[in-house]
Protein backbone atom coordinates (compact mmCIF):
# COMPACT_ATOMS: atom_id res chain seq x y z
CA UNK A 1 0.00 0.00 0.00
CA UNK A 2 1.40 3.38 -0.94
CA UNK A 3 1.55 5.87 1.90
CA UNK A 4 -1.73 7.72 1.62
CA UNK A 5 -1.45 11.41 0.85
CA UNK A 6 -4.35 12.40 3.00
CA UNK A 7 -2.68 11.00 6.10
CA UNK A 8 -1.88 14.52 7.13
CA UNK A 9 -4.43 15.30 9.80
CA UNK A 10 -7.37 17.44 8.80
CA UNK A 11 -9.07 17.66 12.10
CA UNK A 12 -7.75 18.63 15.47
CA UNK A 13 -8.48 15.38 17.11
CA UNK A 14 -6.54 13.48 14.48
CA UNK A 15 -3.26 15.32 15.10
CA UNK A 16 -2.39 12.91 17.87
CA UNK A 17 -2.45 10.12 15.30
CA UNK A 18 0.78 11.41 13.77
CA UNK A 19 2.99 9.33 16.02
CA UNK A 20 0.81 6.28 16.10
CA UNK A 21 1.61 3.26 14.01
CA UNK A 22 0.74 3.63 10.36
CA UNK A 23 -0.40 0.17 9.44
CA UNK A 24 -4.06 0.18 8.82
CA UNK A 25 -6.30 -2.81 9.09
CA UNK A 26 -3.58 -5.30 8.38
CA UNK A 27 -3.51 -8.92 9.37
CA UNK A 28 -1.60 -10.56 12.14
CA UNK A 29 1.53 -11.83 10.54
CA UNK A 30 2.84 -13.87 13.42
CA UNK A 31 2.83 -17.56 12.58
CA UNK A 32 -0.42 -19.10 13.69
CA UNK A 33 -0.28 -22.23 15.83
CA UNK A 34 -0.71 -25.62 14.21
CA UNK A 35 -4.13 -25.90 15.80
CA UNK A 36 -5.14 -22.56 14.38
CA UNK A 37 -3.94 -23.56 10.93
CA UNK A 38 -5.86 -26.80 11.18
CA UNK A 39 -8.99 -24.91 12.17
CA UNK A 40 -8.54 -22.51 9.30
CA UNK A 41 -8.13 -25.44 6.93
CA UNK A 42 -11.38 -26.95 8.20
CA UNK A 43 -13.06 -23.58 7.89
CA UNK A 44 -12.19 -23.31 4.22
CA UNK A 45 -12.93 -27.00 3.53
CA UNK A 46 -16.26 -27.64 5.21
CA UNK A 47 -16.54 -31.26 4.10
CA UNK A 48 -13.11 -32.22 5.49
CA UNK A 49 -14.36 -33.06 8.99
CA UNK A 50 -16.91 -35.58 7.82
CA UNK A 51 -14.40 -37.08 5.38
CA UNK A 52 -11.89 -37.52 8.22
CA UNK A 53 -14.55 -39.11 10.45
CA UNK A 54 -15.59 -41.40 7.58
CA UNK A 55 -12.04 -42.56 6.90
CA UNK A 56 -11.27 -43.06 10.60
CA UNK A 57 -14.45 -45.07 11.17
CA UNK A 58 -13.71 -47.19 8.09
CA UNK A 59 -10.22 -47.90 9.45
CA UNK A 60 -11.46 -48.70 12.96
CA UNK A 61 -14.18 -51.07 11.77
CA UNK A 62 -11.80 -52.54 9.20
CA UNK A 63 -9.22 -53.32 11.90
CA UNK A 64 -11.73 -54.81 14.35
CA UNK A 65 -13.77 -56.78 11.84
CA UNK A 66 -11.16 -57.57 9.21
CA UNK A 67 -12.20 -59.03 5.85
CA UNK A 68 -15.81 -59.46 6.91
CA UNK A 69 -16.22 -55.68 6.85
CA UNK A 70 -13.41 -54.60 4.61
CA UNK A 71 -14.59 -56.40 1.50
CA UNK A 72 -15.84 -54.97 -1.75
CA UNK A 73 -19.19 -56.61 -1.09
CA UNK A 74 -19.73 -55.07 2.37
CA UNK A 75 -18.50 -51.65 1.34
CA UNK A 76 -20.79 -51.52 -1.68
CA UNK A 77 -23.61 -52.82 0.50
CA UNK A 78 -23.18 -49.66 2.60
CA UNK A 79 -23.50 -47.59 -0.58
CA UNK A 80 -26.72 -49.41 -1.50
CA UNK A 81 -28.13 -48.82 1.95
CA UNK A 82 -27.44 -45.10 1.96
CA UNK A 83 -28.47 -44.38 -1.65
CA UNK A 84 -32.00 -43.21 -0.76
CA UNK A 85 -30.81 -41.18 2.23
CA UNK A 86 -28.11 -39.68 0.04
CA UNK A 87 -30.56 -38.59 -2.67
CA UNK A 88 -33.06 -37.15 -0.19
CA UNK A 89 -30.13 -35.64 1.71
CA UNK A 90 -29.08 -33.78 -1.45
CA UNK A 91 -32.51 -32.13 -1.56
CA UNK A 92 -32.29 -31.40 2.16
CA UNK A 93 -28.78 -29.91 1.75
CA UNK A 94 -29.98 -27.37 -0.80
CA UNK A 95 -32.84 -26.29 1.45
CA UNK A 96 -30.71 -26.12 4.61
CA UNK A 97 -28.07 -24.06 2.78
CA UNK A 98 -30.75 -21.40 2.28
CA UNK A 99 -31.22 -21.41 6.08
CA UNK A 100 -34.46 -23.35 5.67
CA UNK A 101 -35.47 -26.89 6.51
CA UNK A 102 -37.66 -29.36 4.66
CA UNK A 103 -39.54 -31.79 6.88
CA UNK A 104 -41.74 -32.91 3.99
CA UNK A 105 -38.98 -34.57 1.90
CA UNK A 106 -39.90 -38.11 2.96
CA UNK A 107 -43.60 -37.56 2.38
CA UNK A 108 -42.99 -36.05 -1.07
CA UNK A 109 -40.76 -39.01 -1.92
CA UNK A 110 -43.45 -41.54 -0.97
CA UNK A 111 -46.26 -39.65 -2.68
CA UNK A 112 -44.21 -39.42 -5.89
CA UNK A 113 -43.49 -43.14 -5.84
CA UNK A 114 -47.18 -43.90 -5.23
CA UNK A 115 -48.15 -41.62 -8.14
CA UNK A 116 -45.66 -43.42 -10.39
CA UNK A 117 -47.09 -46.79 -9.36
CA UNK A 118 -50.79 -45.97 -9.31
CA UNK A 119 -50.75 -44.03 -12.59
CA UNK A 120 -49.26 -47.08 -14.25
CA UNK A 121 -51.52 -49.69 -12.68
CA UNK A 122 -54.78 -47.87 -11.93
CA UNK A 123 -55.00 -45.73 -15.09
CA UNK A 124 -52.88 -47.88 -17.37
CA UNK A 125 -50.57 -45.06 -18.39
CA UNK A 126 -47.25 -46.03 -19.95
CA UNK A 127 -44.81 -46.27 -17.02
CA UNK A 128 -42.50 -43.63 -18.55
CA UNK A 129 -45.36 -41.12 -18.50
CA UNK A 130 -46.33 -42.17 -14.98
CA UNK A 131 -42.76 -41.49 -13.87
CA UNK A 132 -42.95 -38.01 -15.38
CA UNK A 133 -46.21 -37.48 -13.48
CA UNK A 134 -44.38 -38.52 -10.31
CA UNK A 135 -41.72 -35.90 -10.97
CA UNK A 136 -44.42 -33.30 -11.62
CA UNK A 137 -46.03 -34.21 -8.29
CA UNK A 138 -42.71 -33.69 -6.50
CA UNK A 139 -42.18 -30.38 -8.26
CA UNK A 140 -45.71 -29.22 -7.38
CA UNK A 141 -45.26 -30.06 -3.67
CA UNK A 142 -41.94 -28.21 -3.70
CA UNK A 143 -43.52 -25.26 -5.47
CA UNK A 144 -46.23 -24.99 -2.80
CA UNK A 145 -43.54 -25.08 -0.10
CA UNK A 146 -41.52 -22.45 -1.95
CA UNK A 147 -44.39 -20.04 -2.52
CA UNK A 148 -45.55 -20.25 1.09
CA UNK A 149 -42.01 -19.65 2.34
CA UNK A 150 -40.77 -17.05 -0.15
CA UNK A 151 -43.92 -15.09 -0.96
CA UNK A 152 -46.22 -15.57 2.04
CA UNK A 153 -43.09 -15.45 4.23
CA UNK A 154 -44.04 -18.26 6.60
CA UNK A 155 -41.22 -20.01 8.49
CA UNK A 156 -39.89 -23.06 6.57
CA UNK A 157 -40.22 -25.27 9.65
CA UNK A 158 -43.95 -24.59 9.95
CA UNK A 159 -44.70 -24.78 6.23
CA UNK A 160 -42.93 -28.08 5.73
CA UNK A 161 -44.30 -29.51 9.00
CA UNK A 162 -47.76 -28.82 7.63
CA UNK A 163 -46.92 -30.10 4.17
CA UNK A 164 -45.45 -33.27 5.68
CA UNK A 165 -48.87 -34.09 7.20
CA UNK A 166 -50.83 -32.93 4.15
CA UNK A 167 -48.71 -34.85 1.65
CA UNK A 168 -48.58 -37.98 3.77
CA UNK A 169 -52.35 -37.95 4.31
CA UNK A 170 -52.97 -37.38 0.58
CA UNK A 171 -50.67 -40.30 -0.08
CA UNK A 172 -52.72 -42.63 2.15
CA UNK A 173 -56.07 -41.32 0.89
CA UNK A 174 -55.09 -41.57 -2.76
CA UNK A 175 -53.43 -44.97 -2.56
CA UNK A 176 -56.20 -46.33 -0.29
CA UNK A 177 -53.27 -47.78 1.66
CA UNK A 178 -52.69 -50.36 -1.08
CA UNK A 179 -49.31 -51.78 -1.91
CA UNK A 180 -48.46 -52.65 -5.49
CA UNK A 181 -46.64 -55.96 -5.34
CA UNK A 182 -43.14 -56.46 -6.67
CA UNK A 183 -44.02 -59.25 -9.10
CA UNK A 184 -46.72 -57.15 -10.74
CA UNK A 185 -44.24 -54.34 -11.32
CA UNK A 186 -41.62 -56.75 -12.58
CA UNK A 187 -43.89 -58.22 -15.24
CA UNK A 188 -45.67 -55.09 -16.52
CA UNK A 189 -43.49 -52.06 -15.71
CA UNK A 190 -39.89 -53.06 -14.94
CA UNK A 191 -38.69 -49.51 -15.59
CA UNK A 192 -40.14 -48.53 -12.21
CA UNK A 193 -37.57 -50.82 -10.61
CA UNK A 194 -34.74 -49.50 -12.77
CA UNK A 195 -32.74 -48.08 -9.84
CA UNK A 196 -32.85 -51.43 -8.04
CA UNK A 197 -31.06 -53.27 -10.84
CA UNK A 198 -27.57 -54.36 -9.93
CA UNK A 199 -24.35 -54.88 -11.76
CA UNK A 200 -21.07 -56.28 -10.49
CA UNK A 201 -17.49 -55.22 -10.78
CA UNK A 202 -15.54 -58.06 -9.20
CA UNK A 203 -16.96 -58.53 -5.72
CA UNK A 204 -18.47 -55.08 -5.69
CA UNK A 205 -22.22 -54.87 -6.24
CA UNK A 206 -23.67 -51.61 -7.43
CA UNK A 207 -27.26 -50.62 -8.03
CA UNK A 208 -28.25 -47.87 -10.43
CA UNK A 209 -29.63 -46.12 -7.34
CA UNK A 210 -26.07 -45.83 -6.01
CA UNK A 211 -24.88 -44.44 -9.35
CA UNK A 212 -27.80 -42.00 -9.33
CA UNK A 213 -26.85 -40.72 -5.89
CA UNK A 214 -23.19 -40.26 -6.81
CA UNK A 215 -24.03 -38.54 -10.10
CA UNK A 216 -26.61 -36.31 -8.42
CA UNK A 217 -24.17 -35.21 -5.72
CA UNK A 218 -21.50 -34.60 -8.38
CA UNK A 219 -23.82 -32.50 -10.54
CA UNK A 220 -25.05 -30.49 -7.55
CA UNK A 221 -21.47 -29.92 -6.40
CA UNK A 222 -20.71 -28.47 -9.83
CA UNK A 223 -23.85 -26.34 -9.82
CA UNK A 224 -23.22 -25.00 -6.32
CA UNK A 225 -19.60 -24.07 -6.94
CA UNK A 226 -19.44 -23.18 -10.60
CA UNK A 227 -22.69 -21.52 -11.56
CA UNK A 228 -24.23 -18.20 -10.60
CA UNK A 229 -27.31 -20.02 -9.30
CA UNK A 230 -25.12 -21.92 -6.85
CA UNK A 231 -23.29 -18.85 -5.61
CA UNK A 232 -26.65 -17.09 -5.20
CA UNK A 233 -27.95 -20.01 -3.17
CA UNK A 234 -25.10 -19.58 -0.68
CA UNK A 235 -25.61 -15.81 -0.65
CA UNK A 236 -29.33 -16.16 0.05
CA UNK A 237 -28.64 -18.56 2.92
CA UNK A 238 -25.92 -16.36 4.31
CA UNK A 239 -27.74 -13.03 4.38
CA UNK A 240 -30.91 -12.72 2.30
CA UNK A 241 -31.08 -8.96 2.67
CA UNK A 242 -27.52 -8.47 1.44
CA UNK A 243 -28.18 -10.86 -1.44
CA UNK A 244 -31.28 -8.88 -2.38
CA UNK A 245 -29.40 -5.56 -2.36
CA UNK A 246 -26.64 -7.13 -4.45
CA UNK A 247 -29.14 -7.92 -7.16
CA UNK A 248 -30.12 -11.51 -6.38
CA UNK A 249 -33.82 -12.25 -6.76
CA UNK A 250 -34.25 -13.90 -3.36
CA UNK A 251 -37.87 -14.97 -3.77
CA UNK A 252 -37.26 -16.64 -7.11
CA UNK A 253 -34.13 -18.30 -5.70
CA UNK A 254 -36.03 -19.77 -2.73
CA UNK A 255 -38.90 -21.03 -4.86
CA UNK A 256 -36.50 -22.64 -7.32
CA UNK A 257 -34.65 -24.35 -4.46
CA UNK A 258 -37.84 -25.86 -3.01
CA UNK A 259 -39.05 -26.96 -6.45
CA UNK A 260 -35.70 -28.60 -7.15
CA UNK A 261 -35.87 -30.24 -3.73
CA UNK A 262 -39.29 -31.66 -4.65
CA UNK A 263 -37.98 -32.97 -7.97
CA UNK A 264 -35.02 -34.64 -6.26
CA UNK A 265 -37.44 -36.22 -3.75
CA UNK A 266 -39.41 -37.63 -6.69
CA UNK A 267 -36.16 -39.13 -8.00
CA UNK A 268 -35.68 -40.64 -4.54
CA UNK A 269 -39.25 -42.00 -4.81
CA UNK A 270 -38.36 -43.74 -8.06
CA UNK A 271 -35.18 -45.12 -6.50
CA UNK A 272 -37.26 -46.25 -3.51
CA UNK A 273 -39.39 -48.49 -5.75
CA UNK A 274 -36.17 -50.08 -6.98
CA UNK A 275 -34.87 -50.53 -3.44
CA UNK A 276 -37.95 -52.20 -1.92
CA UNK A 277 -39.28 -53.68 -5.16
CA UNK A 278 -42.88 -52.73 -4.49
CA UNK A 279 -44.79 -49.44 -4.31
CA UNK A 280 -45.75 -49.00 -0.68
CA UNK A 281 -47.43 -45.93 0.80
CA UNK A 282 -45.93 -46.75 4.20
CA UNK A 283 -42.29 -46.84 3.07
CA UNK A 284 -39.64 -44.25 3.87
CA UNK A 285 -41.20 -42.98 7.07
CA UNK A 286 -37.93 -41.70 8.51
CA UNK A 287 -36.42 -40.24 5.35
CA UNK A 288 -36.77 -36.66 6.59
CA UNK A 289 -34.98 -37.32 9.88
CA UNK A 290 -32.32 -39.45 8.19
CA UNK A 291 -31.66 -36.76 5.61
CA UNK A 292 -31.32 -34.07 8.26
CA UNK A 293 -28.94 -36.36 10.17
CA UNK A 294 -26.77 -36.81 7.07
CA UNK A 295 -26.72 -33.06 6.45
CA UNK A 296 -25.79 -32.22 10.04
CA UNK A 297 -23.09 -34.88 10.34
CA UNK A 298 -21.85 -33.69 6.95
CA UNK A 299 -21.05 -30.32 8.49
CA UNK A 300 -23.62 -28.19 6.67
CA UNK A 301 -24.64 -25.35 8.94
CA UNK A 302 -28.31 -25.27 9.91
CA UNK A 303 -28.03 -21.48 9.91
CA UNK A 304 -27.49 -21.50 6.16
CA UNK A 305 -24.88 -20.31 3.73
CA UNK A 306 -22.13 -22.76 4.69
CA UNK A 307 -21.22 -26.31 3.92
CA UNK A 308 -20.58 -28.62 1.03
CA UNK A 309 -22.89 -31.16 -0.53
CA UNK A 310 -19.99 -33.63 -0.51
CA UNK A 311 -20.08 -33.38 3.28
CA UNK A 312 -23.71 -34.52 3.23
CA UNK A 313 -22.74 -37.63 1.24
CA UNK A 314 -19.91 -38.38 3.67
CA UNK A 315 -22.38 -37.86 6.51
CA UNK A 316 -24.80 -40.36 5.00
CA UNK A 317 -21.93 -42.82 4.50
CA UNK A 318 -20.79 -42.40 8.13
CA UNK A 319 -24.27 -43.43 9.27
CA UNK A 320 -24.14 -46.39 6.87
CA UNK A 321 -20.67 -47.47 8.07
CA UNK A 322 -21.75 -47.32 11.73
CA UNK A 323 -24.95 -49.26 11.07
CA UNK A 324 -23.26 -52.05 9.18
CA UNK A 325 -20.14 -52.14 11.32
CA UNK A 326 -22.04 -52.36 14.58
CA UNK A 327 -24.41 -54.95 13.13
CA UNK A 328 -21.48 -57.11 12.06
CA UNK A 329 -20.04 -56.75 15.56
CA UNK A 330 -23.29 -58.22 16.81
CA UNK A 331 -24.24 -55.33 19.08
CA UNK A 332 -27.77 -54.27 19.90
CA UNK A 333 -29.10 -51.98 17.16
CA UNK A 334 -29.83 -49.33 19.79
CA UNK A 335 -26.07 -48.73 20.09
CA UNK A 336 -26.15 -47.52 16.50
CA UNK A 337 -28.82 -44.95 17.25
CA UNK A 338 -27.01 -43.90 20.40
CA UNK A 339 -23.74 -43.36 18.55
CA UNK A 340 -25.43 -41.48 15.72
CA UNK A 341 -27.04 -39.21 18.31
CA UNK A 342 -23.61 -38.52 19.79
CA UNK A 343 -22.23 -37.85 16.29
CA UNK A 344 -24.94 -35.29 15.55
CA UNK A 345 -24.14 -33.31 18.68
CA UNK A 346 -20.39 -33.58 18.14
CA UNK A 347 -20.80 -32.46 14.53
CA UNK A 348 -22.66 -29.29 15.51
CA UNK A 349 -20.15 -28.58 18.30
CA UNK A 350 -17.31 -28.98 15.80
CA UNK A 351 -19.10 -26.63 13.40
CA UNK A 352 -19.26 -23.94 16.09
CA UNK A 353 -15.60 -24.40 16.96
CA UNK A 354 -14.48 -24.22 13.33
CA UNK A 355 -16.49 -21.08 12.72
CA UNK A 356 -14.52 -19.29 15.42
CA UNK A 357 -11.62 -19.39 12.98
CA UNK A 358 -13.24 -16.52 11.18
CA UNK A 359 -13.24 -14.22 14.18
Amino acid at each position, binding site marked *: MSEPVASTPHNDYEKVLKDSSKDVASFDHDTPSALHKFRHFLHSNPSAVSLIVLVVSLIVFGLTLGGKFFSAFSLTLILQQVAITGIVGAAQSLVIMTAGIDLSVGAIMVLSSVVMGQFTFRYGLPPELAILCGFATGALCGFINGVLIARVKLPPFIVTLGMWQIVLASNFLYSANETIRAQEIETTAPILQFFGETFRIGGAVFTYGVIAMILLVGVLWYVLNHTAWGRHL*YAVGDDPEAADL*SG*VNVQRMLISVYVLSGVICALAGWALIGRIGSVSPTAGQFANIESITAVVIGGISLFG*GRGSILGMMFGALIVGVFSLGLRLLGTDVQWTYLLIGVLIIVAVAADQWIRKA*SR
Partner: protein
Amino acid sequence: MDQKGITLMTDTRKPILTGRNLVKRYGRVTAIDNADFDLYPGEILAVIGDNGAGKSSLIKAISGAIRPDEGEIRMDGELVHFASPIEARKAGIETVYQNLALSPALSIADNMFLGREIRKPGFMGKVLRKLDHGAMEKMAREKLSELGLMTIQNINQAVETLSGGQRQGVAVARAAAFGSKVIILDEPTAALGVKESRRVLELILDVRSRGIPIVLISHNMPHVFEIADRIHIHRLGKRLTVINPKDYTMSDAVAFMTGAKAPEPLAA
Protein backbone atom coordinates in the same frame (compact mmCIF):
# COMPACT_ATOMS: atom_id res chain seq x y z
CA MET B 1 -36.92 28.94 -2.20
CA ASP B 2 -34.47 30.57 -4.52
CA GLN B 3 -31.16 28.79 -4.41
CA LYS B 4 -29.55 30.19 -7.48
CA GLY B 5 -27.21 32.35 -5.48
CA ILE B 6 -26.10 29.52 -3.31
CA THR B 7 -25.43 26.99 -6.03
CA LEU B 8 -23.83 29.67 -8.15
CA MET B 9 -20.45 28.00 -8.33
CA THR B 10 -21.87 25.01 -10.21
CA ASP B 11 -24.40 26.85 -12.32
CA THR B 12 -22.40 26.61 -15.50
CA ARG B 13 -22.16 22.81 -15.48
CA LYS B 14 -24.92 20.40 -16.28
CA PRO B 15 -25.95 18.17 -13.40
CA ILE B 16 -25.62 14.42 -13.96
CA LEU B 17 -28.47 13.51 -11.63
CA THR B 18 -31.38 15.73 -10.67
CA GLY B 19 -34.55 15.36 -8.67
CA ARG B 20 -37.38 17.87 -8.95
CA ASN B 21 -40.41 18.29 -6.67
CA LEU B 22 -40.10 14.80 -5.29
CA VAL B 23 -42.90 13.74 -2.95
CA LYS B 24 -43.23 10.53 -0.99
CA ARG B 25 -46.01 9.94 1.49
CA TYR B 26 -46.41 7.06 3.91
CA GLY B 27 -50.05 7.24 4.99
CA ARG B 28 -50.36 10.65 6.58
CA VAL B 29 -46.64 11.15 6.97
CA THR B 30 -44.89 13.03 4.19
CA ALA B 31 -41.33 11.75 4.14
CA ILE B 32 -40.27 13.76 1.09
CA ASP B 33 -42.05 17.06 0.62
CA ASN B 34 -41.31 18.64 -2.75
CA ALA B 35 -37.61 18.04 -2.44
CA ASP B 36 -35.06 18.95 -5.08
CA PHE B 37 -31.68 17.35 -5.61
CA ASP B 38 -28.71 18.04 -7.86
CA LEU B 39 -25.50 16.14 -8.35
CA TYR B 40 -22.79 17.51 -10.63
CA PRO B 41 -20.10 15.52 -12.42
CA GLY B 42 -16.97 14.81 -10.45
CA GLU B 43 -18.09 16.19 -7.13
CA ILE B 44 -18.65 14.86 -3.67
CA LEU B 45 -22.06 16.00 -2.51
CA ALA B 46 -22.73 15.44 1.16
CA VAL B 47 -26.32 15.10 2.28
CA ILE B 48 -26.87 16.01 5.90
CA GLY B 49 -29.98 16.45 7.98
CA ASP B 50 -31.37 15.75 11.39
CA ASN B 51 -32.85 12.34 12.14
CA GLY B 52 -36.26 12.13 10.49
CA ALA B 53 -35.51 14.95 8.05
CA GLY B 54 -36.16 12.50 5.24
CA LYS B 55 -32.66 12.24 3.84
CA SER B 56 -32.69 8.48 3.72
CA SER B 57 -36.08 8.53 1.94
CA LEU B 58 -34.62 10.98 -0.57
CA ILE B 59 -31.62 8.74 -1.15
CA LYS B 60 -33.82 5.67 -1.46
CA ALA B 61 -35.88 7.45 -4.11
CA ILE B 62 -32.73 8.17 -6.07
CA SER B 63 -31.25 4.71 -5.67
CA GLY B 64 -34.49 3.00 -6.69
CA ALA B 65 -35.34 1.48 -3.31
CA ILE B 66 -38.62 3.44 -3.16
CA ARG B 67 -40.75 5.05 -5.84
CA PRO B 68 -41.61 8.70 -5.30
CA ASP B 69 -45.33 9.53 -5.53
CA GLU B 70 -44.67 12.71 -7.46
CA GLY B 71 -41.82 14.53 -9.10
CA GLU B 72 -39.22 13.55 -11.60
CA ILE B 73 -35.70 12.16 -11.52
CA ARG B 74 -33.44 12.84 -14.46
CA MET B 75 -30.14 11.25 -15.24
CA ASP B 76 -27.99 13.01 -17.83
CA GLY B 77 -31.09 15.04 -18.61
CA GLU B 78 -33.22 12.00 -19.33
CA LEU B 79 -36.27 11.11 -17.30
CA VAL B 80 -35.80 7.85 -15.39
CA HIS B 81 -38.12 5.68 -13.31
CA PHE B 82 -36.45 3.07 -11.16
CA ALA B 83 -38.65 0.21 -9.98
CA SER B 84 -35.86 -1.40 -7.96
CA PRO B 85 -32.26 -0.82 -6.87
CA ILE B 86 -31.26 -3.27 -9.59
CA GLU B 87 -32.72 -1.00 -12.28
CA ALA B 88 -30.96 1.99 -10.78
CA ARG B 89 -27.76 -0.01 -10.79
CA LYS B 90 -28.21 -0.88 -14.44
CA ALA B 91 -28.52 2.83 -15.14
CA GLY B 92 -25.20 3.37 -13.36
CA ILE B 93 -26.24 4.34 -9.84
CA GLU B 94 -24.39 2.17 -7.34
CA THR B 95 -25.34 2.33 -3.68
CA VAL B 96 -23.10 1.20 -0.84
CA TYR B 97 -25.52 0.52 1.97
CA GLN B 98 -24.70 1.07 5.60
CA ASN B 99 -24.84 -2.67 6.25
CA LEU B 100 -22.66 -3.08 3.12
CA ALA B 101 -24.80 -5.84 1.56
CA LEU B 102 -21.93 -8.33 1.53
CA SER B 103 -22.35 -12.06 2.09
CA PRO B 104 -19.95 -12.93 4.92
CA ALA B 105 -19.29 -16.55 3.98
CA LEU B 106 -18.56 -15.83 0.32
CA SER B 107 -15.15 -14.75 -0.92
CA ILE B 108 -14.16 -11.22 -1.88
CA ALA B 109 -14.31 -12.09 -5.57
CA ASP B 110 -17.69 -13.80 -5.23
CA ASN B 111 -19.07 -10.79 -3.41
CA MET B 112 -17.78 -8.29 -5.95
CA PHE B 113 -19.49 -10.18 -8.76
CA LEU B 114 -22.63 -11.23 -6.91
CA GLY B 115 -25.58 -10.75 -9.23
CA ARG B 116 -23.38 -10.06 -12.29
CA GLU B 117 -21.15 -13.06 -12.57
CA ILE B 118 -18.96 -13.64 -15.59
CA ARG B 119 -19.47 -16.95 -17.35
CA LYS B 120 -16.89 -18.87 -19.31
CA PRO B 121 -17.01 -18.38 -23.06
CA GLY B 122 -18.28 -21.09 -25.38
CA PHE B 123 -19.92 -24.38 -24.52
CA MET B 124 -18.85 -24.46 -20.86
CA GLY B 125 -20.44 -21.09 -20.15
CA LYS B 126 -23.44 -21.20 -22.45
CA VAL B 127 -24.64 -24.73 -21.85
CA LEU B 128 -23.07 -25.72 -18.54
CA ARG B 129 -23.32 -22.15 -17.17
CA LYS B 130 -19.80 -22.46 -15.79
CA LEU B 131 -18.49 -19.35 -14.08
CA ASP B 132 -15.15 -17.91 -15.07
CA HIS B 133 -13.58 -17.81 -11.60
CA GLY B 134 -10.19 -16.88 -13.02
CA ALA B 135 -11.43 -13.81 -14.87
CA MET B 136 -13.49 -12.64 -11.90
CA GLU B 137 -10.60 -13.05 -9.49
CA LYS B 138 -8.25 -11.21 -11.82
CA MET B 139 -10.64 -8.31 -12.24
CA ALA B 140 -11.40 -8.16 -8.50
CA ARG B 141 -7.68 -8.06 -7.75
CA GLU B 142 -7.13 -5.28 -10.29
CA LYS B 143 -9.95 -3.18 -8.91
CA LEU B 144 -8.76 -3.58 -5.34
CA SER B 145 -5.17 -2.67 -6.26
CA GLU B 146 -6.33 0.38 -8.19
CA LEU B 147 -7.93 1.62 -5.02
CA GLY B 148 -4.86 0.75 -2.94
CA LEU B 149 -6.64 -2.04 -1.10
CA MET B 150 -4.21 -4.84 -1.80
CA THR B 151 -3.29 -5.27 1.83
CA ILE B 152 -5.89 -7.94 1.25
CA GLN B 153 -3.67 -10.86 0.38
CA ASN B 154 -6.04 -13.50 -0.79
CA ILE B 155 -8.91 -12.61 -3.05
CA ASN B 156 -10.55 -15.92 -2.13
CA GLN B 157 -10.73 -15.30 1.58
CA ALA B 158 -14.19 -15.01 3.04
CA VAL B 159 -15.43 -11.48 3.64
CA GLU B 160 -16.11 -12.35 7.29
CA THR B 161 -12.35 -12.61 7.87
CA LEU B 162 -11.85 -8.94 6.92
CA SER B 163 -11.82 -5.95 9.23
CA GLY B 164 -14.58 -3.34 9.11
CA GLY B 165 -12.50 -0.95 7.01
CA GLN B 166 -11.51 -3.66 4.56
CA ARG B 167 -15.13 -4.69 4.15
CA GLN B 168 -16.06 -1.09 3.46
CA GLY B 169 -13.23 -1.05 0.95
CA VAL B 170 -14.56 -4.13 -0.81
CA ALA B 171 -18.05 -2.63 -0.93
CA VAL B 172 -16.76 0.65 -2.37
CA ALA B 173 -14.53 -1.18 -4.84
CA ARG B 174 -17.53 -3.21 -5.96
CA ALA B 175 -19.50 -0.03 -6.51
CA ALA B 176 -16.64 1.62 -8.41
CA ALA B 177 -15.75 -1.44 -10.46
CA PHE B 178 -18.62 -1.64 -12.88
CA GLY B 179 -18.46 1.52 -14.93
CA SER B 180 -20.84 3.28 -12.61
CA LYS B 181 -21.80 6.91 -13.14
CA VAL B 182 -22.86 7.76 -9.59
CA ILE B 183 -21.94 6.19 -6.26
CA ILE B 184 -24.11 6.69 -3.21
CA LEU B 185 -22.40 6.01 0.12
CA ASP B 186 -24.64 5.63 3.15
CA GLU B 187 -22.79 6.38 6.40
CA PRO B 188 -19.51 4.82 5.23
CA THR B 189 -17.57 5.74 8.38
CA ALA B 190 -20.26 5.21 11.01
CA ALA B 191 -19.04 1.81 12.17
CA LEU B 192 -15.32 2.46 11.82
CA GLY B 193 -12.49 3.50 14.10
CA VAL B 194 -10.56 6.74 13.61
CA LYS B 195 -7.80 5.27 11.48
CA GLU B 196 -10.06 3.11 9.39
CA SER B 197 -12.31 6.10 8.77
CA ARG B 198 -9.32 8.01 7.46
CA ARG B 199 -8.54 5.17 5.07
CA VAL B 200 -12.11 5.11 3.79
CA LEU B 201 -12.13 8.89 3.31
CA GLU B 202 -9.00 8.56 1.19
CA LEU B 203 -10.74 5.87 -0.77
CA ILE B 204 -13.68 8.20 -1.42
CA LEU B 205 -11.33 10.96 -2.62
CA ASP B 206 -9.61 8.38 -4.79
CA VAL B 207 -12.90 7.40 -6.40
CA ARG B 208 -13.72 11.05 -7.07
CA SER B 209 -10.33 11.59 -8.69
CA ARG B 210 -11.40 8.98 -11.23
CA GLY B 211 -14.24 11.28 -12.15
CA ILE B 212 -17.11 9.41 -10.49
CA PRO B 213 -19.41 11.73 -8.55
CA ILE B 214 -20.33 10.64 -5.06
CA VAL B 215 -23.32 11.24 -2.84
CA LEU B 216 -22.22 10.93 0.77
CA ILE B 217 -24.73 10.58 3.56
CA SER B 218 -23.07 11.10 6.90
CA HIS B 219 -23.65 12.28 10.42
CA ASN B 220 -19.99 12.96 10.93
CA MET B 221 -19.58 16.72 10.46
CA PRO B 222 -15.77 16.77 10.44
CA HIS B 223 -15.71 14.13 7.69
CA VAL B 224 -18.38 15.93 5.70
CA PHE B 225 -16.60 19.26 5.89
CA GLU B 226 -13.31 17.69 5.03
CA ILE B 227 -14.16 15.94 1.80
CA ALA B 228 -17.45 17.35 0.45
CA ASP B 229 -17.45 19.86 -2.40
CA ARG B 230 -21.00 20.91 -1.63
CA ILE B 231 -23.30 20.14 1.25
CA HIS B 232 -26.99 19.54 0.69
CA ILE B 233 -28.86 20.31 3.92
CA HIS B 234 -32.14 18.49 4.27
CA ARG B 235 -34.79 19.66 6.70
CA LEU B 236 -38.44 18.68 7.14
CA GLY B 237 -38.56 16.64 3.97
CA LYS B 238 -37.10 19.20 1.61
CA ARG B 239 -33.82 20.68 0.53
CA LEU B 240 -33.26 23.65 2.78
CA THR B 241 -30.13 24.86 1.09
CA VAL B 242 -26.86 23.83 -0.46
CA ILE B 243 -23.71 25.31 1.03
CA ASN B 244 -20.05 25.38 0.20
CA PRO B 245 -18.14 23.95 3.15
CA LYS B 246 -15.45 26.58 2.70
CA ASP B 247 -17.88 29.41 3.39
CA TYR B 248 -19.58 28.01 6.46
CA THR B 249 -18.60 26.49 9.75
CA MET B 250 -19.84 23.24 11.14
CA SER B 251 -21.90 25.12 13.71
CA ASP B 252 -23.63 27.02 10.91
CA ALA B 253 -24.50 23.75 9.22
CA VAL B 254 -25.83 22.27 12.43
CA ALA B 255 -27.85 25.43 13.03
CA PHE B 256 -29.41 25.19 9.54
CA MET B 257 -30.04 21.52 9.96
CA THR B 258 -31.88 21.90 13.24
CA GLY B 259 -33.68 25.09 12.31
CA ALA B 260 -31.86 27.22 14.86
CA LYS B 261 -30.80 29.52 12.04
CA ALA B 262 -32.31 30.19 8.63
CA PRO B 263 -29.90 30.32 5.70
CA GLU B 264 -29.67 33.65 3.90
CA PRO B 265 -31.11 33.05 0.44
CA LEU B 266 -28.33 34.81 -1.41
CA ALA B 267 -25.31 34.08 0.70
CA ALA B 268 -22.63 32.54 -1.47
